[in-house]
């Protein structure tokens, strides 16, 4: 038992160190773990580092097949997990599998933290004054609404539809929910500034 625990801890530490050494230059979102600790515990005090720079020749993962679920590290035989936030360490036993997965999100907040900014409430409304026909019309209007949502996705960014399909494939429901909330991979000013 103790051997397993020691092995796990050692493996995690070593692999994150290797990851840092191997990807310090390539992975712009990388920051040393120590500086990240305060950032995640107190998101309001987060200092914004430079955003990932992209060049016109870069092949983005959504352009390839299944590439979102497997981030390849050049020059390494095995994919190395990156511990990007302290949130990954809070729930270590169930979290181990999560750490092993290569995450597709980036930025100062995890999708869970982004969702946590918007607590959910259920409201009801008295619609007794609404005639039956109008109530029956609502599902048709909502179906049209869903189609216009899809239309808007491609208006906002041409890669949206393809990227959404990729997210659905990975099965990460939190990322998908944030994506649908933002209507794309970009945190827009109105949504973000509330």
């Amino acid at each position, binding site marked *: 038992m103790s051997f397993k625990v020691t092995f796990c801890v050692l493996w995690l530490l070593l692999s994150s160190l290797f990851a840092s050494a191997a990807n310090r230059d390539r992975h712009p979102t990388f920051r040393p773990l120590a500086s990240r600790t305060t950032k995640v515990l107190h998101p309001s005090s987060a200092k914004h580092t430079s955003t990932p720079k992209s060049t016109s020749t870069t092949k983005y993962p959504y352009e390839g097949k299944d590439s979102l679920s497997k981030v390849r590290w050049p020059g390494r035989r095995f994919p190395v997990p990156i511990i990007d936030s302290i949130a990954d360490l809070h729930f270590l036993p169930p979290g181990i599998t999560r750490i092993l997965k290569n995450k597709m999100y980036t930025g100062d907040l995890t999708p869970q933290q982004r969702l946590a900014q918007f607590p959910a409430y259920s409201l009801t*409304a008295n619609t007794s004054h609404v005639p039956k026909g*109008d*109530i029956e019309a609502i599902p048709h209007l909502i179906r049209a609404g869903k189609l216009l949502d899809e239309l808007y996705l*491609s208006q906002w960014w041409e890669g949206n539809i393809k990227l959404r399909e990729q997210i659905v494939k990975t099965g990460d429901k939190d990322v998908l929910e944030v994506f649908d909330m933002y209507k794309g*991979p970009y945190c827009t000013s109105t949504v973000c500034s509330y």
Partner: protein
Amino acid sequence: MICIKVHIVLPRSVRTDEARNEDNKPFIKDVPPHPKGAGFYPTDLTKDEFEQFLKSLSPKDKEQAEGYYTVIRRHNKTLSIVRYSTEYESLLTSAAHHFEKAASLVSDATLKDFLVSRAAAFLSNEYIDSDVAWYNVSSESPLEVTAGPYEVYDDELYGYKAGFEILIHVRDFNATEQLQKFTNSLSWIEERLPVDEKYRNTELKAPVIVVVNQIWAGGMGRNTNTRLLQGSCADCSFRTNDVGV
């Protein structure tokens, strides 16, 4: 009593400078920066190229290229103007179909007019008539629907192209009546403002204040400023099972 359940998401955080810094920052890895022309223009389009293209067009085509309801596409290195009704044909045809079905069910004749004319506009790309029909929707209608290409803020390149949005509301007549006292008291307040009489507005028109329950806010409507006022709902998802969607 029939109740429509709405699952809404209310923002907890307030406007902060840090939040503003997140503007259009990708939260997914390896996504390129957001193009200023959104999905309305080719990503690699430069202003010079577009202006050259505009010069080569007839006045009528130029008007289309700069219009609200067209996108610019590149085929074989040449730019072309594509109308929304062509670019998004399959989605708009289905949406029009659902609007016509809804129009056959709603009780208010003016709302019916709007839905039918908007469905036709989706296919014809001519939106003016249905915009007029929207203005004429009666205040008695229990439903309130706003749908179509309206705002141009997403086109940060030129501000020409309109993004689609849809808002579906159920009007709350009781609450609207309660707010009527504010509408009525507006001229009373104006008459008593501590300014010289010549500065007072004698032809004050009271704005219409309508309270609604928002059950859908889609497309660009996610950005609507009315979200907080209405107690919902840029990021809400309708519990679609409740109405059998």
